[in-house]
């Protein structure tokens, strides 16, 4: 008697797989679509959150991009034709150039292709990346030859007496 009761109890017990997924075959499509909508909305929430994190990080990282910095003497620039400096932080190499028509321009020295340092080519009056022969226009920083597709970030300069000041990073 006791054995029979035990057997019956095990017969009526719902199998474990059915406890985990209690969906009948005909309702399968209906449920999976609904669950998928929930899952994708959760993904959407995560993506929107990641976008806001990027926006906040951008504001925090570029907060110092309007700080003024003394980058050197004008006389040093006149001697060599170009002047290397760091702006807005010590990890951001830049280059200031006096063009043949007397204009003063400055750009980030990091090539927008693969981050090599660009140099001033006096003969061609252009900024040249020696790694892959990328060429940038000296007046606008826009790419004119080679693999780079994005312009160099420009830096606003101010001349006060013999000193040069970087005042703003223009993306």
């Amino acid at each position: 008697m006791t054995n029979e009761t035990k057997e019956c109890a095990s017969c009526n017990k719902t199998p474990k797989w059915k406890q985990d997924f209690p969906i009948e075959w005909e309702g399968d499509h209906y449920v999976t679509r609904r669950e998928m909508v929930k899952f994708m909305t959760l993904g959407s929430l995560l993506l929107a959150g990641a976008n806001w994190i990027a926006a906040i990080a951008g504001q925090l990282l570029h907060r110092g991009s309007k700080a003024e910095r003394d980058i050197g003497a004008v006389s040093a620039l006149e001697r060599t034709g170009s002047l290397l400096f760091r702006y807005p932080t010590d990890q951001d190499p830049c280059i200031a150039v006096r063009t043949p028509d007397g204009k003063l321009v400055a750009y980030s020295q990091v090539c927008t292709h693969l981050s090599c340092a660009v140099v001033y080519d006096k003969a061609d009056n252009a900024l040249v990346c020696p790694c892959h022969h990328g060429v940038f226009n000296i007046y606008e920083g826009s790419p004119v030859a080679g693999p780079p597709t994005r312009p160099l970030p420009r830096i606003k300069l101010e001349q006060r007496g013999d000193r040069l000041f970087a005042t703003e990073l223009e993306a």
Partner: protein
Amino acid sequence: MSVRTQGTTLFTAILILVGTTVVVQLWLLTVSTEALLIGQVKTLVPAAVGSSVLLLINACLLRYVSRFDRDVERE
């Protein structure tokens, strides 16, 4: 057409719509990351706002799905 068949068709359409918005959100995140790396800060906030609007649309669609289920269960 039975309610269940209608529901399946409706959920398929909603699923496609939600999938499309998620793909657009992924594209926005890619653009934001690239803009962040090259220092184009002006792009970041509009991209985040756009992504939030898409999230709102998805949330509304999910709410509609939940209400639809509740109505079906009541019937």
